[in-house]
């Protein structure tokens, strides 16, 4: 019975998609929002990477919520997995080569992550991509030495303050009589490292938040005891 209804449901979905495919006119419409942004973004926001302009300025609110989703997922994940029991069994530490490699990787990944975050308004990449690399920088040593645990207290401090500073930058604009999340500071010269106003600051907050969030999630998953 369940199989039959599932199959029927899939059939309906397939028909729907086929109908869409049939009637869709491919790329017939000018992207109103996109064209308008492409026309004014360089002047209005001042970031050479327009995707960054959209992510942090035009649709900064979405990004704030996205950070909140990650935060919520990490909080809920902590609730679900709970604290590992004291004296729980760990995987044994890896061999010397892996440990040495992990130690070697740590500063390298840290620098690469920060570089990507800081250049987010100029080149592809930014807080999210850099944040993932930061997270892996902190997580790889744990993979090499499963007996060490991550300092969850410090992580929760970082994620709290990073998220709050994103909102605070937005609220500062309101104090100045502008709307929430209006970009602040001088726009500077297009393509320079110090340009695009408060956008690099926002990306640093995003990078720290994403990095700490994901590192926390990964550590939680790996600290959970095996089920058998």
């Amino acid at each position, binding site marked *: 019975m369940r199989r039959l209804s599932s199959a029927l449901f*899939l059939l309906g979905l397939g028909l729907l998609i086929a109908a869409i*495919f049939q009637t869709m006119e491919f790329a017939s419409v000018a992207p109103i*929002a996109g064209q308008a942004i492409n026309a004014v973004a360089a002047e209005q926001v001042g970031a050479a*990477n327009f995707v960054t302009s959209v*992510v942090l300025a035009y649709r900064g609110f979405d990004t704030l919520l996205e950070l909140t989703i990650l935060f919520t997922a990490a909080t*809920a994940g902590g609730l*679900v997995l709970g604290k590992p029991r004291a004296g729980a069994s760990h995987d044994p530490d890896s061999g010397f080569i892996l440990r040495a490699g992990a130690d070697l990787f740590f500063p390298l990944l840290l620098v690469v992550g920060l570089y990507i975050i800081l250049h987010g308004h100029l080149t592809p990449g930014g807080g999210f991509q850099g944040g993932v690399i930061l997270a892996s920088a902190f997580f790889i040593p744990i993979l090499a030495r499963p007996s060490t645990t991550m300092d969850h207290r410090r992580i929760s401090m970082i994620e709290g303050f990073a998220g709050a500073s994103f909102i605070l930058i937005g609220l500062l604009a309101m104090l100045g009589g502008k709307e929430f999340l209006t970009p602040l500071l001088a726009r500077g010269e297009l393509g320079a490292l110090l340009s695009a106003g408060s956008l690099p600051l926002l990306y640093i907050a995003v990078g720290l938040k994403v990095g700490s969030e*994901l590192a926390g999630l990964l550590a939680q998953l790996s600290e959970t005891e095996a089920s058998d």
Partner: protein
Amino acid sequence: MDTGLIIYTAAFGLILIGSTGIVLSTHLLRIIFGIALLEAGANLLLLLATFREGSSAPIIVDGRIPAAMADPVPQALVLTAIVIGVGILALALSLALRVQRAYGTLDIREVRQRLEQDIADEAGIELSSSSDAPHAVVSRQDGPA
């Protein structure tokens, strides 16, 4: 048959394969794989929405603004959607670990039966179809489904 159409096929293909995985799979981990595939297809479709061939990436290099730049809005949207997806994926996997620890299985039918049993036990009523109550049998999943 142009490039755009081929990629559209990929998007709809991923959507259909992902949906099939969600609806027809019996193992919860496989269903989570299906969700990830479905999301990938949806993201691709979103990015394709206003794609035109011959446009360039929406980034200014050396101060020159290219003539035809790609629409940056869907790119930002997909960026958001990918990050949302990984957050939910992590939560789903954490839940799957707990379910496995509690029920000893991730087979969707067994999980559902155990869930019904749990609810019925807590309410203090008989399960209506208690013919094969898996209550006493702690079935352990030893291999992948």
